[in-house]
């Protein structure tokens, strides 16, 4: 008597190119405009929670990464998005080591959404949902603890600023731009330190200061494509969605006024728009990791962090003749 045993094995891929993200989102986001609109509201909601709980920005950034990651592999549902966001914040607090009790976060979340009559039953049901979603978030990230633990955008803006002796005004501007970056999908594409460098680059250009820090960093480094990917994403955001940015409402006094035209000039003077190399659409489409919808019906789902382990697993399966 033989029995079938199904197992899924996923390699954790914490960063994906733009095409890869679009491919994955084909399965999960059916109304892109609604998703984008809701995302801005969610970011505002998470920001409010962050402010009320006195959390640092790195927790907010981690939560938004999780929110975006969740929706790469799980259906976007409008009525669920605030619950997903709360779950992202609960997980984000743990990952960024800014611990807050789940009860406190959940109660505040319900209160901010103007829910009346938050008794213990309502809270318990909500928390149960939060923890179910938390598992989904962890699965969408492949349980990868190596990301969002030490390197955060705002921390590295300061570190790069101090290391390369940058003007404090440049860092301040970059720090404000870094908040706008959370509205993009950039968090899913490039590591946080690259985003930090890109925001510093944009700040240098806006303040018309010589921007040699990237070349200092890039000496002996081959990350120019990553930095450019981030840099042009940020500039394009300011050109295409200027009304949505927070930079214009929080412009420090030492910066000349900004406008869409200013960013268009910046882009024109920045050389060819070459970011990350993308695969062809068909190649991206044949990537099972992105193309196939996640099957949560398979009971054993395993996530590994390196290709070596993946290879070992496959070898072991071959040997056992499964």
């Amino acid at each position, binding site marked *: 008597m033989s029995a079938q045993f199904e197992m899924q094995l996923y390699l*954790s*891929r*914490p*960063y*994906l*190119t733009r095409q*890869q993200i679009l491919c994955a989102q084909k399965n999960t986001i059916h109304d892109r405009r609604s998703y984008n609109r809701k995302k801005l509201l969610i970011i505002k909601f998470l*920001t409010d929670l*962050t*402010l009320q709980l*006195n*959390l*640092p*920005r790195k927790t*907010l950034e981690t939560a938004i990464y999780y929110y975006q990651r969740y929706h790469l592999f799980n259906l976007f549902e409008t009525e669920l998005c605030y619950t997903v966001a709360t779950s992202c914040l609960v997980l984000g607090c743990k990952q*960024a*080591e*800014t*611990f807050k009790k789940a009860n406190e976060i959940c109660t505040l979340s319900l209160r901010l959404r103007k829910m009346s009559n938050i008794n213990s039953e309502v809270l318990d049901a909500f928390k149960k949902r939060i923890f179910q979603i938390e598992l989904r978030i962890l699965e969408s990230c492949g349980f990868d603890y*190596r*990301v969002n633990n*030490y*390197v955060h955008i*705002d*921390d*590295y803006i*300061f*570190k*790069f*600023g*101090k*290391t390369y002796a940058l003007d*404090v005004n440049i*860092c*301040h501007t970059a*720090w*404000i731009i870094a*908040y706008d970056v959370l509205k993009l999908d950039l968090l899913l594409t*490039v*590591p*946080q*330190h*690259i985003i930090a460098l890109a925001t510093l680059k944009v700040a240098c250009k806006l303040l018309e200061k010589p921007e040699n820090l990237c070349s200092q960093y890039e000496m002996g480094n081959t*990350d120019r494509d*990553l930095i450019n990917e981030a840099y042009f994403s940020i500039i394009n955001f300011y050109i295409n969605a200027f009304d949505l940015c*927070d930079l214009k409402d*929080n412009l*420090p006094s030492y910066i000349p006024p900004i406008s869409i035209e200013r960013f268009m000039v910046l882009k024109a003077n920045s050389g060819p728009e070459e970011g*990350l*190399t993308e*695969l062809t659409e068909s190649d991206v489409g044949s*990537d099972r990791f992105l193309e196939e919808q996640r099957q949560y019906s398979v009971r054993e789902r395993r996530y590994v962090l390196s*290709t070596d382990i993946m290879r070992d697993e496959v070898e072991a399966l071959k040997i056992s003749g499964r």
Partner: protein
Amino acid sequence: MDSIEARLQFIQVLKNLHKTLHSVLSTSTAATSVTAGAAVSPQHKFETPDPIQFYLNNCKEHYEDFHLCMLDQMEKMDPLDRVTVVLYYGKIMGILNRDSAPIPQRIVSQFMLPSLATVFQLALPQGNTESLANLTVCLDMLNILREEFAGEQHSEVFRSVKEVVHQRMQFKTELQQRYLEEGTLALSADPQTPQPVSKETVATTLGRMELDRERHKRSKEQIWVVERPNHSILNAAEFEQKWASTEPLNEFDMAQIRHLTNLARESYLI
């Protein structure tokens, strides 16, 4: 509150010091005034009352009782726990000294300063090897207090305290020497010769480990808290504070970012 009730409440405060004191000390230490009675750390809600605030609120009427209680309780505590009282004592002395009103000044000059040597002696009992763990903290507190009370009139007090501390440091060095030479800390004619470990010692040690774990957890709980008075995520004060406190990139940071870049490249699978 009458004298007996004040004493009882204060004894409870002292017994809970190991839990409450470190959360208070790890937050920003703004000098408080006895008269205003404002909370030192309003952003935290403690389940047990802030011990320093308790003292400041009630010391005007009960300072003599409190003083006797402190010395009394210290004697009853395990030597390793007494170091929290040293921290408490030192912190209060500092706050009271900065208050120029007559009562705080009297408390400091007539009660706290003269008993300073006793407090240190209790925290570092003669011949007790375990309490040598308190040495670093006591030395730090001594240096802080010496700076705070820099005048000539206090030099006698600090001389006797210094003597106590230096004696213990010598004892510690002797023990370390002996260990290096003989590979053992067995002190044959010493009343503190190691005995078979009793159940009580095990229980105390486990209790102490648990307390240390709690304290470490609590100290990390508030370390990341960001106060934003104008309720804005782009608050300039937050930027200033982070800018002032961040260090340039170090080796660990560079290793982290190299690691992340590799992760990203592998992740794209190109």
